[in-house]
């Protein structure tokens, strides 16, 4: 079911969406498809072996939810702390595709220089936080960045946004961070992608409340639950959340229900997900849904979508070809400094 407020008059369909909704929708849709193609490429590189060391973690099926949050954010102005399944959100926030590929391939030209890989990447000084693996622990960091800006008087209308999965909501870090953000009344959007599994663990072994959005009340923050396979519903929710955050209403929780359409990582066949779940409403592919909706609204034609897709594929292929040739790290050129104060690094003076 779509949450789209569409009214039908005599002959033509009049959209009741705000003026800039269509533009945002199409932008989000573009990043969803770019993300999907990029991630398919990552999967292919992984299966081919050789170039990608370590795992590949994809956001297939979660693009609408991730992109809808990402398009609310402005790189250089807002603070973003994405997690595992947010490739579409990262692109929408303004992450260049090269950051993703260079990190997966370990290229020294990338932001992580081969020191960290895959989804563990960011540019913190640009407000783009680099997740550590420990789930839930980025929430308080994003909160801290907003806190510092408020203290400096530079917060303005900037907001923060971070995401977690259903599994991460069970961590102490999530609870502490959420509560602290609420106590400090920070302009922070927290998205919870409930894809019904944490690795192989189903919701029934993860939490005991009816719906994760019930937690919002306990934290004293605004919460909404949406169908995360529906881009229009996602956009409506995140636009509202961003507006409320900017208006000083404190943290906003958006819970989206969907299904992960890939394994936990590309090594995982997700055989623990029963077949009948794959035919539920939550298992709809958000990209198909979003494309059909755009055409139905008259925001794009089928032909537009085909042309755009060709362009996306060309762009991804070009970028992969370019990054594949870039240098990988050399242990003899690595500085091996874990401190910025190099004279305090142990062993620097050792023979």
């Amino acid at each position, binding site marked *: 079911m779509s949450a789209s407020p569409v009214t039908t008059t005599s002959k033509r369909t009049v959209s009741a969406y705000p003026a800039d909704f269509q533009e945002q929708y199409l932008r989000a849709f573009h990043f969803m498809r770019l993300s999907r193609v990029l991630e398919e490429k990552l999967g292919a590189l992984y299966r081919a072996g050789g170039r990608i060391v370590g795992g590949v973690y994809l956001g297939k099926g979660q693009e609408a939810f991730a992109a809808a949050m990402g398009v609310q954010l402005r790189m250089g102005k807002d603070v973003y702390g994405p997690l595992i399944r947010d490739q579409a959100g990262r692109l929408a926030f303004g992450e260049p595709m090269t950051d993703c590929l260079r990190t997966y391939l370990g290229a020294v030209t990338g932001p992580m220089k081969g020191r960290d890989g895959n989804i563990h990447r960011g540019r913190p000084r640009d407000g783009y936080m680099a997740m550590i693996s420990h789930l839930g622990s980025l929430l308080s960091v994003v909160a801290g960045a907003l806190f510092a800006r408020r203290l400096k008087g530079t917060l303005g209308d900037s907001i923060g946004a971070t995401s977690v999965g259903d599994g991460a909501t069970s961590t102490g870090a999530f609870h502490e961070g959420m509560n602290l953000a609420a106590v400090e009344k920070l302009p922070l959007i927290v998205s919870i992608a409930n894809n019904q599994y944490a690795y192989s663990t189903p919701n029934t072994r993860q939490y005991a409340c009816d719906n994760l959005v019930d937690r919002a009340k306990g934290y004293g923050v605004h919460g909404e639950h949406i169908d995360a396979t529906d881009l229009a519903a996602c956009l409506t929710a995140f636009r509202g959340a961003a507006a409320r955050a900017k208006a000083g209403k404190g943290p906003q929780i958006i819970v989206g229900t969907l299904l992960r359409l890939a394994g936990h990582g590309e090594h995982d066949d997700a055989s623990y997900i029963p077949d009948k779940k794959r035919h539920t409403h939550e298992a709809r592919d958000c990209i198909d849904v979003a494309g059909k909706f755009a055409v139905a609204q008259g925001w794009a034609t089928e032909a537009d979508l085909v042309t755009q897709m060709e362009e996306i594929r060309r762009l991804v292929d070009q970028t992969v070809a370019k990054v594949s040739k870039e240098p990988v790290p050399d242990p003899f050129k690595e500085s091996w400094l*874990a401190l910025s104060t190099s004279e305090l690094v142990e062993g620097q003076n050792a023979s």
Partner: protein
Amino acid sequence: MSGSITYLEAIREAQYDALRNDPAVFLYGQDINTFGGAFKATKNLGKEFPGRVFDSPISEDAMVGLAIGAAIEGARPIVEMQFADFSSIGFNQIVNQAATLYWRTETPCPVTIRLPSGGTAGSGPFHSQSMEAIYAHYPGLVIVTPATVEDAYWMLLDSVALNDPVIYCEHKFLYYHLKSESIGERSLPIGKARIARPGRHATVVTYSAMVHDAIRAAEELQLDGYQIEVVDLRSVKPMDTDTILGSVARTGRLLAVGEAFPWGGVTAEVISRVASEGFHLLDAPPMRLNAKDTPIPYHPNLWKAHRPTVASIAGALRSLLRY
């Protein structure tokens, strides 16, 4: 400055000066604003610097996370743990988030985390711990352990000025017991050890409150004609291996003393460095003295026997000198 100042007051003074000197500094911790902190290390600071001293929820993980996020934005937060022991709840943020930030992203992380550390009688297993070795194990952190009023003050200011995360271990036993006429002039930078007492028959390498017990043990041995050198590490990471080796070169004998648990740790690190880099300097097997390998006891009778004391340090030195 006239009159006398305690170790605790020096910590308060340093925070006062840090707040006054740099608008990027703020304090975040439990009960630190109006109440002035469980030990009063932030007494009146909330009043003197409105809007810069914050009472936090009891969320050590999120407190450190907030500080890291703020540091990324150019702030220089000081986080007060109510007791060092509770930093275990913030452990993940400290060792995985703060300590890896610079390495992973070349973003400096100027966070100072104050750990009221070490034993006082009656505090029991969960209000007495010394955590320096745990944190020192992780790359990307600086661990300081001031033993004097002067170091308590200057090393805290230096910690705040550093562009890296610092674990500042302040010893609770010294809070009120240790007094000085004044804060004194800045002496050494972080990373340099100090010869707290010169000598030539044996070296005691130690840090924090144990420096004072070691000096008293050395005074006891002086009555028997022994000159014991005491090295105060000041920072356990980085560890000033050169000063340690220089001292052992003069004395030929080494005793490493620490209040922490015995497995691994700072004393083991001192001995391993001397054994591997200065074996030829040693006239006797290096010795170490630590707390017992049990949780820290509550009752004073047990507590005093659990940790190294002046008597046990003196005893260890006698057997070291007999070798």
